[in-house]
C-alpha cells in the first residue's frame, strides 16, 4: 500500500478588517491592531451594539476581473480575492491548479449576501421587482461554485455551512482528500459577509458586546460580528518540495465532535472531545502542544466552556500553554473565522510569534488560562491547535505543526 502523502500549507490569502494580504494582515495582527469600527453596512439605530469588524477598504476589482464582479455576491468576492492572494502567495499561478486534481472547499455561516438583499426587497416591496441576477446568486452553493469557476478547478467542490467552525471543516476535509483521494492541491477556507440577520440574531441572544470583544476577561460582554475571508493552499509535500515552495506548516490532522446538546449553548465535554480527537488523529499527546488558537468569541458561555475543556484536555499543562483569541481584534468572522485563525497558526509557527488577545483587563478565575494578554509574544511554536466551535454542537480542532522533513 502506498504511504499516504503528507499535507503542507504553502499559500495564505486573507481579506480582513485589519489588512488584506498575508503580510499586512500578520503585521497588524501581531501589533494587536483592532479591526472594530462603527458599522456602516446597515442601520444600527435602536441596537446596543454600533460596532463590528467590517472590511472597509475592499475593492473587488483589484483581485477579480472587472466584468465578473457584478455577478458575484460579496462573500464570493471576498473568497475569490483571498484565493487569488493565496495562490500568488504559494508561488503558483491559476493555471497550476486549473485541473481535476484540485479541490475547492469553502466554509460559511450565512452564505451569499445577495440573498439578504433579495429577502429584504421581498419583505419591503413584494415579489414584483426581484432582481434575476440576485436570485441566481442567492443560494449558498454559489460561494464554493464561484471560486471553483473563477479558477477553473475540476476536482471536488464542497460547501460546508457549519457556521463558526466551517473553515476548519473545509481545511480538514482538504487534508483528507490530499491524503486519500490523490488530490494535489486544495484551495480551502471560509468566507462571510456582514449580515444583518446575524447582527440581529446574536443581539437577540444577548451574545453581542456593545463595543469590544474581550475573550477570557472577567467582564467580557460578548462577541463582535466581523466579516472577511481566509483561504489556504494545501499541497502534497512532494509537490511542494519539487517546486521549492515555501512551507508554512504541516497539517497533521483534525478532530471533529458533536455535542448533541443544544442549538446554541456549548458543552465543554464536546469541545474537549474535538481536541482529544484531533490529537489522537495526529498521533500526538497533550504534552506536544505549544499554542492553542482558541475559538474565544468573548461570550461568557463560550470562553468558560472552552477554558474548562482546555483544562480537562491539557491537565497540568493547561495554564502554561498560550491560548490566544484573535477574535479580540477581528471580531467573529463567522465562516471565515477558523480559516483566518488557521492562517494565524501557520504564521505563528513560521515566525515564532503568537498574536495577542487584546482588550484583556481583568482575569477571570473561571478562565484561568494564559490568553497571551494584549502584547504579542515571541515563542517557538512547533505544534498549534486551532479550535472552531459552532452552534448546534459543530466542534472542530485542526492540528498544525512546524514542517520538518
Amino acid at each position, binding site marked *: 500500500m502506498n504511504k499516504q502523502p503528507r499535507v503542507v500549507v504553502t499559500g495564505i490569502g486573507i481579506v480582513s478588517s485589519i489588512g488584506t494580504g498575508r503580510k499586512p494582515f500578520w503585521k497588524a495582527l501581531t501589533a494587536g491592531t483592532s479591526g472594530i469600527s462603527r458599522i456602516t453596512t446597515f442601520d444600527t439605530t*435602536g*441596537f446596543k451594539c454600533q460596532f463590528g469588524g467590517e472590511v472597509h477598504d475592499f475593492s473587488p476589482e483589484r483581485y477579480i476581473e472587472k466584468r465578473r464582479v457584478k455577478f458575484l455576491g460579496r462573500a464570493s468576492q471576498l473568497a475569490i480575492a483571498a484565493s487569488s492572494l493565496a495562490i500568488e502567495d504559494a508561488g503558483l499561478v491559476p493555471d497550476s491548479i*486549473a485541473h*481535476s486534481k484540485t479541490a475547492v472547499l469553502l466554509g460559511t455561516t*450565512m*452564505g451569499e449576501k445577495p*440573498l*439578504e438583499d433579495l*429577502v429584504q426587497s*421581498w*419583505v*419591503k416591496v413584494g*415579489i414584483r421587482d*426581484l432582481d*434575476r441576477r440576485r*436570485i*441566481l446568486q442567492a*443560494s449558498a*452553493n*454559489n460561494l*464554493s*461554485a464561484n471560486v*471553483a*469557476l473563477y*479558477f*477553473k478547478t*475540476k*476536482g*471536488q*467542490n*464542497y*460547501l*460546508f*455551512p*457549519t*457556521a463558526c467552525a466551517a473553515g476548519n*471543516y473545509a481545511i480538514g*476535509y482538504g487534508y*483528507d482528500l490530499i491524503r*486519500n483521494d490523490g488530490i494535489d492541491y486544495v484551495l480551502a477556507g471560509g468566507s462571510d459577509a456582514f449580515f*444583518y*440577520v446575524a447582527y*440581529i*440574531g*446574536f443581539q*437577540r*441572544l444577548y451574545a453581542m458586546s456593545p463595543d469590544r470583544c474581550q475573550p477570557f476577561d472577567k467582564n467580557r460582554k460578548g462577541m463582535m460580528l466581523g466579516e472577511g475571508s481566509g483561504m489556504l493552499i494545501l499541497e502534497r509535500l512532494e509537490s511542494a518540495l519539487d517546486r521549492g515552495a515555501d512551507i508554512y506548516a504541516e497539517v497533521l490532522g483534525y478532530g*471533529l*465532535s*458533536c*455535542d*448533541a*446538546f443544544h*442549538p446554541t449553548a456549548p458543552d465543554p465535554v464536546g469541545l474537549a472531545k474535538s481536541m482529544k*480527537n484531533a490529537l489522537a*488523529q495526529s498521533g500526538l499527546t497533550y504534552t506536544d502542544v505549544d499554542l492553542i488558537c482558541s475559538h474565544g468569541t468573548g461570550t461568557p458561555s463560550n470562553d468558560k466552556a472552552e477554558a474548562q475543556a482546555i483544562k480537562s484536555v491539557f491537565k497540568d499543562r493547561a495554564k502554561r500553554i498560550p491560548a490566544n483569541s484573535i477574535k479580540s481584534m477581528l471580531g467573529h468572522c463567522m465562516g471565515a473565522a477558523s480559516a483566518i485563525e488557521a492562517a494565524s497558526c501557520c504564521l505563528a509557527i513560521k515566525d515564532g510569534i503568537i498574536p495577542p488577545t487584546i482588550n484583556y483587563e481583568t482575569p477571570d478565575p473561571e478562565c484561568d488560562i494564559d490568553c497571551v494578554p494584549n502584547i504579542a509574544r515571541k515563542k517557538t511554536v512547533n505544534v498549534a491547535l486551532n479550535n472552531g466551535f*459552532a452552534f*448546534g*454542537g*459543530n466542534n472542530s480542532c485542526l492540528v498544525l505543526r512546524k514542517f520538518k522533513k
Partner: protein
Amino acid sequence: MDRKRIVITGVGVVAPNGIGKEAFWQALKEGRSGIKAITLFDTSPFLTKQAGECSDFSPEEHLGSKGLRNLDRATKLVLSATKLALEDSGYILTDQNRDDTGVVTATTLSVINNISEFTKEAQDAGPQFVNPAAFPGTTINSPSSQISIRFGIKAFNSTVSTGYTASLDALKYAADFIGLKRAKAVLVAGVEALFFQSFLGFNKLEFLAGIKGEEISCPFDKRRNGIILAEGAGAILLEDAADAQKRNARIYGQLDAVKTFFDPFRTGKYNPKADGLKRAMQAVLKDAGIEPSSVDYILAAANSVVNQDAFETRVIKETFGNRASKIPVSAIKSMIGESISAAGILQIIAGIGAMEHQILWPTINYKEKDPKCDLDCVPYKSRKGTVNTVLINDFGPGGNNASALFSRWHNE
C-alpha cells in the same frame, strides 16, 4: 485509506408520493406521481401551480407533539426520515456507540425560508423584537444539528450544501469518514422543503415547467420544458460491513464508489460537453473496478430540463458505448419532481428498492420521443429486471457533478 466495505443497513424516506420505504417503493412500482397542486402556500401570483409536495406528511406522527415549535419544515422532514431509517436499521444509539456514530446532511435552499421569516419579523415587529429562537434556524447546519440532538449522535455532524449534488457529496463525505475510522456508522440524510421563496425564485428564473410549455415532469420526453420543484427527505444508515455483520444487521447493499467533480463552465449554465458528469461516471466505474457491462440499471439525474436530459443521455452513451441502449435508465423525477439537495438520497433509496425487489422503476409521463434521449427509459410502467448494480447520477447547471454505484451485498 482502509477501503472498508461500506454497506447500507437502514432506510427512511418522506417523499411526495410515499412516506416510509414500503409506501415509497410501492408508489414507484405503480408509477404513482407525487406531483400535485400546491397547498402549502398561495400560488395565485404564479403561472405554475404544481410541485412535489409531501402533502400527507404529519410531523407529529413521527416526532410527537412537543419540541417542534421552532423547527422549520425541512428539519421536521429530515428528522422524520432519520427516525424511520434508524428504526429500519435496528441500530440502537447508546452511550457505548454515540461517539462512533455520525451524521452528514445534504441541504442547501430550505434555509432561505427561515432567513425570510426572520427578516420579515424584523421588518414587521421591529428588529429589537425578533424571536431569538428563530436565529439558529437561519444557518444551514441547523437541521443536521437537530438530528444530532434528537438522536444523540456525537462522533461528528456535518452539512453539505452543494445544491443538486449535495446528497451524493454528503454520501462521499460519510463514506470517507467510515473508511478513515472516524465513525463506525454514519447517517446520510438529505432534505429540501417546499416553500414560497424557492418557488418564487425558480419561477422568476423560468426554470419551472409550465412557463414555456406544459406544466409536467416528463424527463426524456420532447415536451419537457423545465423542472417541477419538489420537497422530500431521505436518510440511510451507512456502516462498515464488518460491524454491520457483527450486529446481524440487514444489509441492503454496498456502496462501491462515489465520485464528485466540478465542471467550470458558466454560472447557471450547462456545459454542452458535460465533461464533469462524464468524468464522474467514468471515475466511479474505475474506482469500483467494474466494467461498464456490469452496470444493470441507471437512476438518472434527468429532471425534465431540455439540456439536462439530453446531455445525460449523451454522456451515458459515451461511457457505455454500444451497451448504452441495453441499460434501463429511469428518471424517477418524473414521479417525485426535482428536490435538489434531496434528489440524490431519494434516488439512492429508489436504487435500494430496485435491488430489493428486482424491479425497474418507470419514467412516467413519457409520450413524445426525443431522438436526443433515445435510451430505454422504462417508459410508462415499471417492469421486472435484473438489478445487481445501480448507477446514480446527479448534476445541474452551475458545475457540480456526482455519480455513485451501489450493488447487492456480496458476503465474502
